């Protein structure tokens, strides 16, 4: 199981793209790459065969982390490569000694990272994330998020699933056990992005979402006095990761969705590729371990996709049973 997107990328390599007995030719950096403009890197020669070392020569594409570099020349005596940094759409970054260096990998880490990101985003609308937000009922609409630029992920909210409140104000030290939560009627409205309004201090505010849907979300409550606390559960799109350090929870990805993402990534990466026998066998074995044996007539890629669909259907059933569609009237969601 993974905590971060980076972990998930590693898991895709480990479980689908690079069996332990069929990894890309690799070694490691013997020194830090401290700037994004450093034009030489040094490698440990002991892990490369002569041919692999020769393959680092001018013209080779080299990968360190998610950065792809273009080899301009090789000094096999000093084990130094002169490189062009950040090529093929990747970004030059700093690297540490002992970071892995690969020679022209068939599956670049950047591509896998992108595929993970794509797969997570594409899970919606079949699947969706769920987020419960605490709001205070007001007499008018209630913007989701604070003013300014997008500092939250409320723009990924799609629709409320339910809203509950105790119809009272919380008092410090009061006995809460004698009160029950009751449903609240709620309507979600979409406002222009950016949205400009004047607050109760007569100050003009602007709400702007810089990513996600090009609307600003707000809700309106019906039948509840202003000032009461309401817990609103929203259906939500999955949040696009921004780095390998992004946690899965922050993008709304449940643990059980990891296999769905991995199968989708593997299918996306393998489609149209000449897959080595050993790799194909490995993937087949991995899928067989998930009780989804690959038939001889199926291609690896299509099998992966079907496997993914199976997983998605299972996840969707669970999601539907847990979050049934609410009753709406005139776009207002009424409690059931």
């Amino acid at each position, binding site marked *: 199981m993974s905590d971060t997107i980076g972990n998930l990328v590693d898991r895709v390599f480990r479980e689908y793209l*690079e069996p*332990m*007995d*069929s*990894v*890309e*030719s690799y070694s490691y950096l013997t020194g830090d790459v401290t700037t994004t403009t450093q034009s030489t890197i040094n490698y440990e020669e*002991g892990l490369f*065969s*002569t*041919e*692999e070392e*020769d*393959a680092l*020569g001018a*013209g080779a594409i080299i990968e360190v982390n998610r950065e792809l570099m273009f080899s301009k020349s090789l000094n*096999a005596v000093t084990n130094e490569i002169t490189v062009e940094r950040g090529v093929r759409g990747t970004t030059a970054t700093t690297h540490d000694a002992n970071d892995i260096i690969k*020679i*022209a*990998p*068939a599956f670049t880490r950047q591509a896998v990272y992108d595929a993970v990101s794509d797969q997570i985003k594409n899970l919606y609308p079949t699947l969706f994330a769920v987020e419960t937000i605490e709001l205070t009922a007001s007499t008018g609409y209630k913007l989701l998020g604070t003013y300014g630029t997008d500092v939250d992920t409320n723009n990924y909210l799609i629709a409320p699933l339910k809203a509950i409140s105790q119809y009272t104000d919380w008092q410090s030290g009061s006995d809460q056990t004698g009160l029950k939560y009751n449903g609240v009627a709620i309507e979600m409205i979409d406002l222009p992005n950016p949205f400009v309004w004047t607050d109760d201090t007569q100050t003009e505010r602007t709400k702007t979402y810089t990513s996600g849907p090009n609307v600003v979300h707000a809700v309106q409550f019906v039948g509840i006095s202003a000032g009461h606390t309401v817990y609103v559960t929203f259906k939500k799109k999955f949040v696009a990761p921004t780095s390998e350090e992004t946690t899965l929870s922050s993008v709304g990805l449940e643990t059980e969705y990891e296999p769905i993402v991995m199968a989708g990534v593997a299918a996306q990466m393998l489609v149209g590729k000449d897959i*080595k026998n050993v*790799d194909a066998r490995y993937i087949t074995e991995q899928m067989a371990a998930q009780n989804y044996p690959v038939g001889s007539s199926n291609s690896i890629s299509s099998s992966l996709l079907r496997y993914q669909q199976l997983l998605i259907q299972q996840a969707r059933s669970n999601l539907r049973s847990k979050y049934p569609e609410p009753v709406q009237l005139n776009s207002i969601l009424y409690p059931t």
Partner: protein
Amino acid sequence: MARVASTSNVRNPKRFGYDIKLDNIYLRTAVGPGREMTIQSSDVQQGQNVNVKQNPEDFTSNLGRIYSRNNFSAGQGLDTAHRADGKPDDVNRFWDSKGIDVFHGDDETAYHIHLLYTTATESLSFGASNNYMTQTTNGNIYVTDGTTVHEYDASTETWSAILAATNGATYNFTGAAAFGNTVYFTTADATNTNSEFIHYEPDGHGWSTHNTAFNTTGGLTGVWFVKNTLFVTGNDGTAEYVWEGDAFADSWASAFAVVDAIIEVEPTHEITGIVDGGAVVLTASTDGNIYSFKLSSGVFVNQGQTKIPFEEIHSIAAAEGIIFFGTKENTRDVGRLYRADLVNADDLYVLANRQLVKEWVVDNVDTTPHAMFVSRDSVYMGVKEDTNEVNLWRYYLPTGGLARDLQTVGNSYVSGITQSDGKFVIVVEGSDVYKETSTYESEGYVVLSAADFFTAESKQFVGAEVSTVTMPADTQVSLQYSTRFEDLDAPESATFTNALTQLGGTGDEEKQIAEVSRYIIGKVILRSTDGMSTPKVKSVQFRALARPELVVAQIPINISDRVERPGRKPLKVKGLGDTLYKALRAKEGDSVTLEIFEPQEIIRGVVEQISYPIQSNEVIGSDTMYAIITVRGTRQGTIEEVTSIHTPGIAAWGIMRYGA
């Protein structure tokens, strides 16, 4: 630019997935369906340029080649059985024997080899070493010992001593020769100032002294009866002389004058033998000459002499027109037997076509052949070969073969050999008289020539077999073998391995052996536990199978740009295939060391062939380019990688292998 992996840039080739090392370069194979790597033995050539099939036993409808012997009568001394310039009688020769009659069957039976009889002492226990022997017409034998003569009565087979001193023989005997039943003797004292020429006549006639004239100037040193003439030798310090005398006239009063000598020999040498050489009388001397005395106008004159360089001649015999003489090397105790032909050259009689028959070299033993004896078919001589071991050696005239014959336990030189009633009588100086018995030796052996079928390569020897006459009780035949060539000279070596022991029946059953070597040296051992019977061996044979020595390795070599290192995804290195192919092509015809990592093989040979690049089957979608390299050579022993524990002094005691 792509490089070829080599020992200079790869430290652990197996880790990087290289499959073979060709000299110093590492290569990857392209083994797969339809392009297998094969390592196979090369075909064994059955035909040989030299015909090594010599006996019926050698021809077989079964597998392999057979080395056999079924006749040993051409004698010993052949070290290698199969040779390019072999002689017709090689097939009947062997290397060494002892205690075995190799020349014919006994008592007119079909040919076989069997044990010889032993010899036993006649218990005379000589007190001196002047033990000259002669045999008279009636068969009696006379042997001198100091001033005593031992007389052997052939009719009663008993010995008796004749005390000569009281009858005129005052000094030690220096020679003896029989004339009819009369025996002539020469005597001399230790300072050669008193000497006699006397004779003994049996049947009550006793001793007669003929001449003592020489005693004032020297001493008489010997007497021989040849061509009805008595030849007497004497030495006065000025020269060694040879005189002749008429035995029939029996008048010696005026004999032995220096002026009458046939020849004079430098005085530090002596005359060691005078024999009838046919046309001439041959006189041997330790000065290295053989003199030829020819009868001319009623007297013998020296009509030629033959010099044998660096040799002292100690014995001589003539038989069937062939002259045999035994020598001692001037400055070493090395004995040799020569044979030569007597030829007439410009009215001179000299020995020509001299051939060395055998040389005996034993540390600290004077092996000079002494006392030659000629029988109807053989020439015998005595050779001391060890302390308390004096053997007769027999030159068999029908085949020209030489072999060891009867053994005695004497400890000096043989001074006389004769026969009495079909049994040999042998006089060993200072020891005793030994007579052949009717008891067989308890053990004897024949060491066969080393056989290699005229190929230096190793053979797989798989079988050994003997064929015998039905074995009597208390006899035994063993067949042993050794694969060490040097065991030819060490018949008692512990490295002789027993292949079979036969206690009864006729043999003729092959016993399995398992030896891989170039040579096999057979040793046939005959034993008799009671001495009453002897085993009789008809033939002996060994079977060998050829072993392939060359191996041929055909290996598809990956010469594509695509590198498939185990555990790594394929990688393409531009120009690698071309570089590899050029490196391979440069090896074509070269002597190389090919090391295959799995299976572990090291082959030293030549790159016999390199195929042009072959692109593998496109049907299966592969684009592997490969070339097939063929290396033919010899398989080497596999080696361990050198590790730190192989450092001299830690685990290997200096035994380690540096480099390939």
